[in-house]
C-alpha cells in the first residue's frame, strides 16, 4: 500500500537533548499506525514536528507530495493533517459547536466584508458549516451538548469533542495523542471502536500515540517503537510483542528472557 506520509532522518534537538534522532517512518494510507515507547521517547515531539509546532533540524517529512519541515501549522492543517493533544486543548470559553466551527476554518472562505454585509455566499456557507458541525456533534455522540462551553463538558466528552474538531477540517491523516488517557476500561473500549470507525467509514489514516497496550495491540496494523528518540522496532503487533529490544526498553535490561508475555498485558508508563 502506498504511504501517505514519509519521514526521513528526522532529528529534533532541544539544547543538548536529542528528542528525536534520525527517525525514518512510513505510514501506509488508510492504516492505523501506532507509535509507542516509554515516557520521554520522543513520540509527542515527533507529532509536533509533523504538525508544524516544531521544525526538525535535520531530515524531511513528506505528506502527499508536500514537504512539511518548514511549513507553519496552519498550512499543514490546510494540506489535510489534523491532530488532538495529549492534555486536551479545546477552546475552553467557546461552545462545543463553536469549537467545531473553528475546526472548519481552513475549508471555509468567508471574509470580513462578506461577514459584515451578510452576502448570500457567506450566509449559505455559514449555514452549511453549522449543519456540518451538528453532524459532527452527532458523529461523536454529543448531540444536545453543542451549546455548552467546552470547559463545562465532562472529560470523556471533551476528548471526543477534540476529535470532532480535528475531523472538521476533513483531514486525510489524523494524529491522536493518547486518546484514551484517563478513561476507564469501558470508555477505552468504546474509544477503540470509534477510532476504528474513523478509518473504516471515513477512510482517514490514523497515527496514534498510546500507552494502553490493549488498545495498541487491538487496533494497530503496524507499530513503531521509539526509545530515546530512535526507532528500535517496527512491525505488526505480534512482531512487536515478541521483540526483545522492545521488552528491554519497557522493562529494563535482562527482563527479556524472564517476562516475554507481560508487555502485551500491562499498560506502560
Amino acid at each position, binding site marked *: 500500500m502506498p504511504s501517505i506520509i514519509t519521514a526521513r532522518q528526522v532529528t529534533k534537538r532541544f539544547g543538548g537533548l536529542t528528542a528525536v534522532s534520525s527517525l525514518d517512518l512510513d505510514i501506509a494510507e488508510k492504516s492505523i499506525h501506532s507509535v509507542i515507547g516509554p515516557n520521554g521517547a520522543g513520540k509527542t515531539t515527533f507529532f509536533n514536528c509533523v*504538525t*508544524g*509546532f516544531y521544525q526538525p533540524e535535520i531530515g524531511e517529512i513528506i505528506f502527499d507530495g508536500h514537504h512539511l519541515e518548514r511549513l507553519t*501549522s*496552519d498550512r*499543514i*492543517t490546510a494540506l489535510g493533517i489534523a491532530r488532538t*493533544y495529549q492534555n486536551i*486543548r479545546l*477552546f*475552553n*470559553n*467557546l*461552545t462545543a*459547536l*463553536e469549537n467545531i*466551527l*473553528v*475546526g472548519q*476554518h*481552513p475549508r*471555509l472562505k*468567508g*471574509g*470580513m466584508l*462578506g*461577514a*459584515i*454585509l*451578510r452576502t448570500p455566499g*457567506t450566509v449559505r456557507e*455559514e449555514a452549511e458549516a*453549522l449543519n456540518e458541525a*451538528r453532524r459532527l*456533534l*452527532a*458523529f*461523536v*455522540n454529543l*448531540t*444536545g*451538548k*453543542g*451549546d455548552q*462551553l467546552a470547559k463545562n463538558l*465532562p472529560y*470523556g466528552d471533551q*476528548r*471526543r469533542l477534540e476529535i470532532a*474538531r480535528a475531523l472538521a*477540517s476533513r483531514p486525510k491523516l489524523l494524529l491522536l495523542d493518547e486518546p484514551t488517557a484517563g478513561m476507564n476500561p*469501558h*470508555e477505552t*473500549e*468504546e*474509544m*477503540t*471502536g*470509534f477510532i476504528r*470507525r474513523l478509518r473504516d467509514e471515513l477512510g482517514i489514516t490514523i497515527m496514534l500515540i498510546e500507552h494502553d497496550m490493549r488498545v495498541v495491540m487491538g487496533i494497530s496494523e503496524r507499530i513503531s517503537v521509539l526509545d530515546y528518540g530512535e526507532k528500535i522496532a517496527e512491525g505488526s503487533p505480534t512482531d512487536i510483542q515478541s521483540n526483545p529490544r522492545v521488552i528491554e526498553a519497557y522493562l529494563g535490561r535482562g527482563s527479556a528472557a524472564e517476562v516475554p508475555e507481560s508487555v502485551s498485558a500491562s499498560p506502560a508508563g
Partner: protein
Amino acid sequence: MNKKTSFNWLGAIQIGLIGGVVALLVSLIGMVEEFSQRDIISGVITMGQTLIVIAILMAGYFAASRAAGEAATMRAISGALAGLVASALLTGLVVIIPPLNLRSIFPNASPALINILTFNQETVVGILYLLITGAVVGTLGGLIDILPAQIRRSVVLALFWVGLLGLLQELIRVTLTNMPQVGAALKWMFGSRGLSIPGAVAVFIVVAGGNYLWAARGGQVQDRFRALPPTQRRASQWGGALVVIAVLLYLPRILGPYLSEVANIVGLFILAGLGLNIVVGFAGLLDLGYVAFYAIGAYVMGVLTTNAIGQNAGQIVFGPEFSFWQALPIAVGAAVLFGVLLGIPVLKMRGDYLAIVTLGFGEIIRILALSDFLKPYIGGSQGIVEVGQGEIGNFVFGTPQTLYYMIFAACLLAVFISWRLRDSRPGRAWKALREDEDVAQAMGINLVATKLLAFATGAAFSGLSGAIFASKVGSIYPHSFNLLFSINVLALIIIGGMGSLPGVFVGALILAGLPELLREFAEYRLLMYGALLIVMMLTRPEGFWPEATHRRELHEEFGAEGEPRAEIVKTPGGAR
C-alpha cells in the same frame, strides 16, 4: 466547620475591624465630608453618610455570612457585633481628633468630619448615637444575608437604584424641565437636595417588586417569547431595536446641551471601546497603546481641515483645508494603516510582552506629537486649532446636540460591524486566537492575517473616534492623548465584560459617564477606579454584562422535527 467550637466571635470582630478601617479611610481622605454636600434622600441621609453606611452594612453582611449554618438570630447578632466594632473604630477617630490635631497628617480630619460622624451632637451623645447606628446598620447587613437569595437580590438592587437616583437627582430634574408635564407629575419624588422620602420609598418598591416579579415570572415570559414562531420573534426583536433607536434619536432634545455633551463623551468612549473590544475582547491581544490610533485619527483630521495655516504661533505651515467629510475617510484610513504597521513588529509577542511594547507605541506617538521636529507640521505643544466641522447642507455638527447624531451614527455603525463579525468566520478565528494561539494556528488559522485584521479593525474604530473628537473639541493638544486614555478604554471593557458588546456600553456609562456627572468629586476619580476594578476582579471578574454564550445548536430547522435527530451510530462514551 467544627460543630464543637463555640460561635466564632473573633471572625465577626475581624470583619468588623476591616469594615471600620474602610470607613476610617474614606473619612480621613475627605470623601465623607466632600460627599456630604449631596443628599441621597433629602434631609435623611447624605452621600457621605452613605459611604460609611455601605462599609458597615457590608461588614455586617459578611460577618453574618461567615456564620452561615448558625441560627438566624446568631447571624444577625454577629452582623450587629461587626457593625458595633466598625463604628467603635470611628468613635475612636472622634475621640482622638480634637486632642491630637491630626490635621498636619490628615488635612481632612476636621471638626466638620466629627460633626458628620456624631450627627451634630455633643461628643458623648454623638458617640452613643454612632455606636447604636453602627450596631443597627450591622444588624441590617446581617438581615440581608438571612433573607432568601431572590429577595436579597431584589432588595440590594432596589437600594442601589435609590442611591443612584438620589445621586443623579439634579440631572434628572434638569432633564425633566424639558418635559414639563412629566416633570410636574414626578415632582413629589424629589426633595430639595435628593430624593424625597416618598420618592425613595416609591423607587425602592418599584425596583424591588419589579425585580422580584420578573424573577418569579420572567422565565415564563421568556419561554412564551421563545415559543413564538421565528419570523414573529425576529420581528419583535427588530421592533424593540427600532424603539430603542427612536428613543436614542429623540434623546438630545430631552437632555439639553450639557447632558448631550456628556452623552457625546460617553459615545466617543463607546466607539473606542468597541474597537479595543475587538483587539482585546475578541482576539485577546492586550494592547496598552490604543491611544495611538485615537491620536492619529484626531491629528489627521486636525491637519487636513484646520484653517490656522501660516508662520505665526499656533499655526501650522501646511494644510490642505479639506472639508470634514473629505478628511474623515483619510483619518480612518491612516489609523488603519498605523494599526497594521504597529501590528507587524508585535506579531510574535504575547501577553505581557505585547502589553509593554504597545504601551511604548502609545507613548512614542504622544512624544512625536509633542516634538519640536514635527512642530511645523502638527503644532507641537501648541496643538492644532480651528479643526473643521462636519456639515450636511445647512446642518452643522457643531453643538453638542447636533454632534450627538454624528457620534450616534458612528456608534451604530461600529456596533453593527462588531455584531456581524462576532459570529462570523473571522470572529471565530479571533476568539480561537484568544483561547489558545498555538492550537488556533494548528486549526488552520493564519496568525498574521488574523492578528493584523484585529489590529486594523480596532484602529479604525479608534481613529474614527479620534477624528470626531478633534472636530468636536475644535482644537487638539498632545496632552489629550496620554496613557490614561488607553487605560480608561481598557478598564471600561474589563468592567463591562470582555468581548461583550452591551458590556462596552455599560462600561462606558460607568467609567466615562458617571465621572462627568460627578465632576465635583473629580479628585477621587482614580481612587474609585481602583476600588471598582479590585471589587470587580474579586466578585465579578466576568464583568457587569458578560458575553452570552450563543445558543446555535438547536436551530429552528433542526429542532422543528421535535426531538433532535437520533444518533446515527453508536459512539464511544455514549453509555457513560
